[in-house]
């Protein structure tokens, strides 16, 4: 029997070493990455028709970078994301401490309400924002960046519950005795909060900030309902370009955003692993 199969058989739980599994995972990764890779590759293609390879060029990057409305939109997106991140982290951290620390009337209801922006379909939140701001009827012709206020408010509303979620799970690993030790050594309530609780929350705050930044930069649907003609964000701009045709310029702009995502993600991972190493050192 042995003569026919010389290969060492696989141990039962080595699922990952099975050829069929490897092919499956390979196909799935191909499915996930092939479109993105071709998009990036063809953003360097010297052909408007964008199908056959006609040589390397960066002219579409120049074009994209010189496209004023595209760059304005990108600038708007980053501004909104930056402001939304800062406010979301503060609001999210406060809410997390509140839920973690206190018992208060209608807590379960508030807890549920805080989770709602995460689960409600984007379209529902988008129309709610549209209706709300229409009702408020705020002046539309404010100077930059005040005119981005509506979009920013909407973004903060759906970002900060995510921060709360992340920070709260971090808080659950906090040892209350550390805080008591600080108080025992003479710290006031606030000093203990600042010196003991806040440092413990830090990895959660960073993870939450990165999450909020990406979510804000990524959002299309809710922004679509809150943006006006002068407050176009990057996804909304790409949307309007994509609706008409597939152009190398859009490819180039998208490739730049993909690069930004990869950089941000690796930054996040690096920070996280350093945090992990620090946490183990304690």
């Amino acid at each position, binding site marked *: *029997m*042995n003569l026919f*199969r010389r290969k*060492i*058989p*696989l*141990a*039962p*739980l080595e699922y990952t070493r099975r050829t069929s599994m490897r092919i499956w995972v390979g196909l799935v990764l191909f499915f996930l990455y092939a479109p993105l890779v071709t998009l990036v590759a063809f953003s360097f293609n010297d052909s408007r028709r964008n199908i056959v390879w006609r040589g390397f060029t960066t002219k579409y990057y120049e074009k994209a970078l010189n496209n004023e409305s595209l760059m304005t939109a990108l600038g708007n997106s980053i501004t909104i994301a930056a402001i939304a991140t800062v406010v979301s982290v503060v609001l999210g951290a406060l809410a997390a401490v509140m839920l973690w620390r206190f018992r208060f009337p209608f807590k379960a209801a508030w807890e549920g309400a805080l989770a709602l922006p995460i689960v409600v379909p984007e379209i529902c939140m988008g129309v709610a924002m549209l209706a709300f701001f229409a009702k408020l009827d705020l002046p539309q012709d404010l100077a930059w960046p005040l005119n981005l206020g509506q979009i920013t408010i909407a973004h903060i509303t759906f970002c900060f519950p995510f921060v709360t979620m992340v920070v709260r799970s971090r808080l659950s690993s906090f040892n209350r005795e550390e805080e008591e030790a600080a108080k025992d050594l003479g710290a006031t309530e606030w000093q203990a909060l600042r010196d003991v609780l806040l440092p413990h929350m830090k990895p959660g705050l960073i993870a939450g900030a990165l999450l909020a930044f990406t979510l804000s930069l990524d959002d299309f649907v809710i922004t679509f309902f809150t943006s006006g003609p002068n407050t176009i964000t990057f996804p909304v701009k790409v949307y309007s370009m994509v609706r008409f045709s597939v152009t190398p310029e859009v490819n180039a702009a998208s490739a730049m955003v993909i690069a930004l995502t990869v950089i941000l993600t690796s930054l996040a991972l690096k920070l996280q692993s350093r945090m992990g190493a620090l946490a183990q050192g304690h």
Partner: protein
Amino acid sequence: MSDASPIISIRNVTKRFKGAPSPAVDDVSLDIMPGEFFVLLGPSGCGKTTLLRMIAGFEIPTEGQILIDGQDMALVPPNKRPVNMVFQSYAVFPHMTVAQNVGYGLKIARMPSDEIDTRVREALELVKLDGLAGRRPDQLSGGQRQRVALARSLIMRPKVLLLDEPLSALDAKLRAQMQFELADLQDEVGITFITVTHDQDEALSMAGRIAVMNKGDIAQLATPSDLYEFPANRFVADFVGSVNIFEGTLTLDEPDRAAVDCPGLGKVYLNHGVTGAHGSQVWIALRPEKLYLHVPGEGKAVREAARDAPEGHNFARGTIKGMSYLGDITLYEIRLESGAMIRVSRPNLSRRDQEDFTWDDRVSMHWRADSPVVLLS
């Protein structure tokens, strides 16, 4: 009856894990006979669990062969092997009742359900769990969960039952009780048991034969008493029980007598020969309970008592530096005149025996000429 042929035959088995510097199991050969209670004993990382898992089929040997009842298991997956395993964590399925857990293997084998019911009832009776058939695992204690795991494997009537650290998760009292029960159970069902453990008491009390493993290798294969009284090397002497080891030189070796010159202990005389070259480096292993303590002044009696070796008497002096009273015995740490430390245990035969000696007392001790074990490695 084919008692002469082994039920499990391990032939030159080596297991290397990817990225590990040395093999987990290194060229091990071993025969286990039907009906044996066999124990693999060793410190963590010695390869004992890997060996057990290779028998069960969860790891594949890099080299070598495993035969179960004469059949090569190389291409047989675990679900087709005539062995069953009791896992260290028990691996009781949390979403099934006790009866469903125990009947799982028979259900897989497509046995009619009324027959399964009967067999489950019998198996639960065997492990003294009758009446708990409808319980869920989270309503059971650790000991009961282990019995479920036992019943679940025994119901399959395997040729060999593999037990991975079966008692490690139990508290001390329960562990002592289960040691007896497992041995009784094995007697009753007559199945070959192979148990992996790092606990020497467990191994000595249950096993028919023990293989002590060290760094992927079998250090000694023997019965419990041989293992304790005739260790083959320093590793086994030190790992099984407590021991004093002194380095020395073999100065005399004849069929009926031998002597070892130990710088730490002095000259050690034996009333039997050892097989070693004159002047070779050896080690003397001396168990603490094999030393007799005397108060100073009893010197003459000591010398008389120790006069059982043809060449001289086994005798040493020292000062008590540490004591721990353990109830049944008292353990003494004694600094010998050479400066080396030796451990001596003394049974408390009467209620005030522990008051005979105290810190900084000068004491003498002797041992019989057949007590020391000469180790060549």
